[in-house]
């Protein structure tokens, strides 16, 4: 499969200009808040349109400004987990999950839903509303929903940021589990170094709309290409302030 992007966008004085390419691996977009990581995800998903560039998933071109190609978000067949999870508050957990099965046949839908519920240990929670679920349970429902259609790529926008630390650490294991069952590129946005280090196959370091370095976490940690990168990855706390 694989995912390659080249994205340029100018928004209110902020200039984004990034290009990278990954395989079927878990790639972390790492950097301070406001560096352009979420923006990148939104452009891959088709929720935001780049001024210029392209987005290719596998052999499919989702966006190409030079060829005037722009596949609508609905047809990109991607899985997206939002920062606040975006579970529909007026639907039960089961209905939320089934909402992700658009265009699937009835029996296929039921079978797949059962599979997701089992895999994510959501059994018994189907009829509950998001407001009645715990943080961790909501996570699992959000992931199940995003994976119903076996997406070409999985985009995760800081999905664990709302959880307490112990739960966050648990989620790393969860993510490794996801990696095993999803045969597609996973792009994971975070500003937590430990998290990046724990789950990433590849790390892409963002700063102020550009990419400072790409490599395995070990490589980036041991061979930072600039002082800025060194500071970013050596930080023991998640940095909150933009430079």
């Amino acid at each position, binding site marked *: 499969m694989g995912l390659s992007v080249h994205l340029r966008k100018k928004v209110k004085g902020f200039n984004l200009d990034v290009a990278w390419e990954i395989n079927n691996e878990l790639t972390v977009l790492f950097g301070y808040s406001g560096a352009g990581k979420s923006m990148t995800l*939104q452009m891959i*998903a*088709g*929720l935001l349109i780049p001024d210029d560039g392209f987005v290719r998933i596998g052999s499919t071109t989702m966006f190409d400004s030079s060829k005037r190609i722009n596949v*609508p*978000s*609905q*047809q*990109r*067949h*991607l*899985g*997206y987990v*939002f*920062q*606040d999870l*975006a579970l*529909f*508050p*007026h639907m039960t957990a089961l209905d939320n999950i089934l*909402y*992700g099965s*658009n*265009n699937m046949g009835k029996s296929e839908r039921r079978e797949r839903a059962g599979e997701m519920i089992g895999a994510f240990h959501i059994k018994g929670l189907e009829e509950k509303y998001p407001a009645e679920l715990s943080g961790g349970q909501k996570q699992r429902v959000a992931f199940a*929903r*995003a994976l119903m*259609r076996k997406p070409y790529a999985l985009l995760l926008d800081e999905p664990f940021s709302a959880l307490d630390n112990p739960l966050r650490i648990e989620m790393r294991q969860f993510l490794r589990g996801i990696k095993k069952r999803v045969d597609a590129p996973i792009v994971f946005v975070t500003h937590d170094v430990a998290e990046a280090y724990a789950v990433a196959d590849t790390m892409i370091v963002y700063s102020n709309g550009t990419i400072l370095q790409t490599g395995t976490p070990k490589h980036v940690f041991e061979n930072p290409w600039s002082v800025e990168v060194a500071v970013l990855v050596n930080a023991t706390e998640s940095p909150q302030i933009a430079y």
Partner: protein
Amino acid sequence: MLESSVLFSLRLSFQVAAVATFFIIVIGVTVAYFLAQRNFRGKELLDMLFTLPLVLPPTVTGYYLIILFGRNGLIGKPIYAWTGWSIMFTWHAAVLASFVVALPLMIKTTRAAIESVDKDLINASYTLGHSEFETTVRVILPLAKRGIMAGAVLSFARALGEFGATLMLAGNIPGKTDTMPLAIYSLAGSGEWSQANGMVILLTFMSGLFLLFANKFSKGTI
């Protein structure tokens, strides 16, 4: 107290308000949706035009409606030439007047309700493969339901109490177009205060009740 003329006005008022509110909901929600979700040239101008009847004196609104729908009006003239029918002095005119003055209320409340729906939810729906129409029907409208209902209740109350524009378009014809506000006006004008009492109390009570409901809807305590 419950003379047949009073009963007629009562029935007419509710009939007019109900029909007007039906159209208000259909058109109001549609317009509010486009104002909330789409960006296009002249959007704010359109919004202002739709809001105008809210701040203009009802007599000014009535004036414009006569210019449009009077028997010699821009729209009324061709209709009369075509069908021999004029909306003036009919209960349909009362519906038109109520519709125009109460529509802005519906649009404002609904637009706010739609805009308050978390954008992430809408985006999530798109990424999960659902079209804009499906997203509107399955995500946006259900979540904006409270605001829409509050708007409908307010519009109904406003339609029930419409006077100025109604008087100009439908006239005050006993047994035909005298809604409660118009009937009260006539009775007061000819000194028949005691007859007006019943309707005044009823209208006050109902308006208060509607306000309460509208508030409960928007707060979500219903």
